């Protein structure tokens, strides 16, 4: 009985009772770790405070100095702040410049991104294009502006810019500034579109090819509609950069007070003429510029900040919508 009897398996070696998992409480840390923890919190809070301080301060000053009359009157040359008019021309200039810049940048960036992701052959060339766009992104805006001046002062490009009475080419106009602005927006749009294209799974393309569609057709009918959100995000980011850029405006747009038409043709003449944007207006109206009008600088900067905030919000919204549609 004893040999064949069922023998209960020995109980598993009793492990020492595991201590209940303790929360990793900061109180138990070494003092140096606690110090680091505190530093992290301090840095984070400081960031929030700096941001809040800038927005609130600009908001208070903006509300204090901004009035509708300022928005709808043209700036005038003058010595006292009361006689220098409003900021209508800078606002119009900002809008025109942004439209030109983004209208050039978006098609170029989308084409470049599509080519790099979908064709990308020869591979070294595609990689070179990618790094080239990164180089453009890293180039200071002032260098891009000065380069633009060199290009648009060529006599062959005289028709697109402001020409002096003696026949000298100034190389300054909305067209010149807008085309250089497109270089500043290009890397952002390119990055966003490339991100979107690489996120599309390969089987989507393969399904389309299996149905007999060519690559071009796949791109146009399947892929591009899917990256519409990315194009919009990139465009909004690019617009933010264009709106906020000053160096290109000062160098290539002339930063004249009013929009000055070149020639007599209404729209084309304006595009060939010089003008200013909100950024260059703020720069010139600050104590660093010629027209010392800090109150108007605050008002213009407030409008500028509102535009940037709006674009930032738009990017956020686009990103959120995309996440929802994916999920």
């Amino acid at each position, binding site marked *: 009985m004893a040999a064949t009897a069922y023998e209960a398996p020995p109980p598993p070696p009793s492990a020492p009772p595991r201590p209940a998992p303790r929360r990793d409480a900061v109180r138990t*840390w070494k003092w140096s*770790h606690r110090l*680091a923890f505190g530093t*992290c919190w301090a*840095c*984070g809070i*400081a*960031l*929030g405070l700096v*941001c*809040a301080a*800038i*927005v609130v*301060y600009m908001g208070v000053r903006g509300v204090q100095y901004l009035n509708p009359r300022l928005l709808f009157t043209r700036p005038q040359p003058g010595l006292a702040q009361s006689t220098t008019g409003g900021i209508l021309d800078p606002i119009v200039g900002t809008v025109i410049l942004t439209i030109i810049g983004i209208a050039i940048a978006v098609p*170029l960036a989308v*084409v*470049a991104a599509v*080519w790099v992701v979908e064709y990308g052959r020869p591979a070294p*060339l*595609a990689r070179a*294009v990618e*790094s*080239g*766009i*990164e*180089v*453009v992104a*890293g*180039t*200071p805006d*002032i*260098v891009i502006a*000065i380069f633009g*001046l*060199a*290009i648009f002062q060529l006599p062959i490009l005289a028709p697109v810019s402001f020409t002096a009475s003696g026949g000298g080419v100034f190389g300054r106009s909305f067209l010149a500034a807008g085309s250089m602005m497109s*270089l500043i927006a290009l890397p952002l749009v390119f990055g966003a579109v490339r991100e979107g294209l690489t996120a599309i799974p390969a089987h989507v393309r393969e399904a389309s090819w299996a149905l007999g569609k*060519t690559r*071009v*057709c796949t*791109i146009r009918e399947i892929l591009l509609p899917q990256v519409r959100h990315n194009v919009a995000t990139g465009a909004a980011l690019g617009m*933010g950069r264009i709106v*906020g*850029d*000053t*160096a290109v405006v*000062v*160098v290539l747009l002339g930063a004249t007070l009013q929009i000055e038409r070149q020639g007599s043709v209404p729209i084309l003449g304006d595009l060939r003429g010089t003008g200013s944007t909100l950024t260059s207006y*703020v*720069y010139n109206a*600050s104590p*660093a510029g010629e027209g010392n009008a800090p109150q108007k*600088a*605050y008002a213009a*900067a407030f409008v*500028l*900040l509102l535009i940037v*905030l709006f*674009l930032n919000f738009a990017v*956020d919204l686009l990103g959120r919508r995309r996440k929802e549609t994916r999920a």
Partner: protein
Amino acid sequence: MLARLRQPWTDRQATWRLGAVACLVLLLITLMVVFVTVRAWPMLRANGWVSWLGPGGSVDDQLGRMIKTGQDPPDAAYHLRAWPLVYGTLLTTGVSVLIGLVFSVFSAIFIVEFAPARVRAVVVPAVRLLAAVPSVIYGLVGILVLAPFVGNHLISPGRKTSVQNVVQLDGTGVLVAIVVLTVMIVPIMIAIVVDALRAIPPAWTEGAAALGANRWETIWTVGVRAARPAIVAAAVLACARALGEAVALSMVSGSRGFSPNPVDGVTYLFEPIRPLAASMVENVDAMNAPAVKSSIYAFALLLLLSSLALSIGGYLAKLPLRRQGLRV
């Protein structure tokens, strides 16, 4: 012509056409280097290629004299010693990137590891917003708020009179320039470091936690260590941004081609400087004089080559991360 374009493209045509457009970027960069070099050539040749980077005389006087040298200046008219401007660029960029580096690493750790979800929901948009604020607004706040504060409260009248024969201390200067520049570049660095810290596989940090490391030890010894290449890349990118920052610095740096001497002690912090990029913006109106024009293009060439070098540096810095399979 248009009718042919409107027909459905074949793949071969599309490759060619799209590729040609994409390669415009490369053409553009080449053009940029060529044009800027050609315009800078007379000044570089007249000054013996690199010796214009050295010290000697007042750079503002030299630029002022160039304006009067007429349309066909002799070689002697190109004389320029731009050390104060180079010094201003190196000083502002170097110090603000160093400060920004420490600050952004701690902030990134905060955002990724320590911040409660509610705080994070505030801080992350704040960083995004700080990165989007135009530089001219930072410059405006700097010149209308920070500079008067420094000028009225931090600089004693005695200090002002002690150097009044050399420079005016009105608040704009090294300190304000570095503060403004730091605030401008920190958001960019935080974004890169946060991305890298988030890209670290959870298994790595879980491993550390399983060995008994607390949260700080985990993020510091595993997270930050693994993200080191990204931190270097962030510093490099921030350098590129700081080098090229023209308008904000032209507003808050005091805008004088002056090289402060660290021997001056605390006064050093308040003395005016002017970086290269700011000098370019301010001298654009004087570009009718060929000598000034050539000098500005020489500055542009210097900035262009530095930013090219920094782009390559940033790429090289990220290589180790790519090798580990992290997408940064």
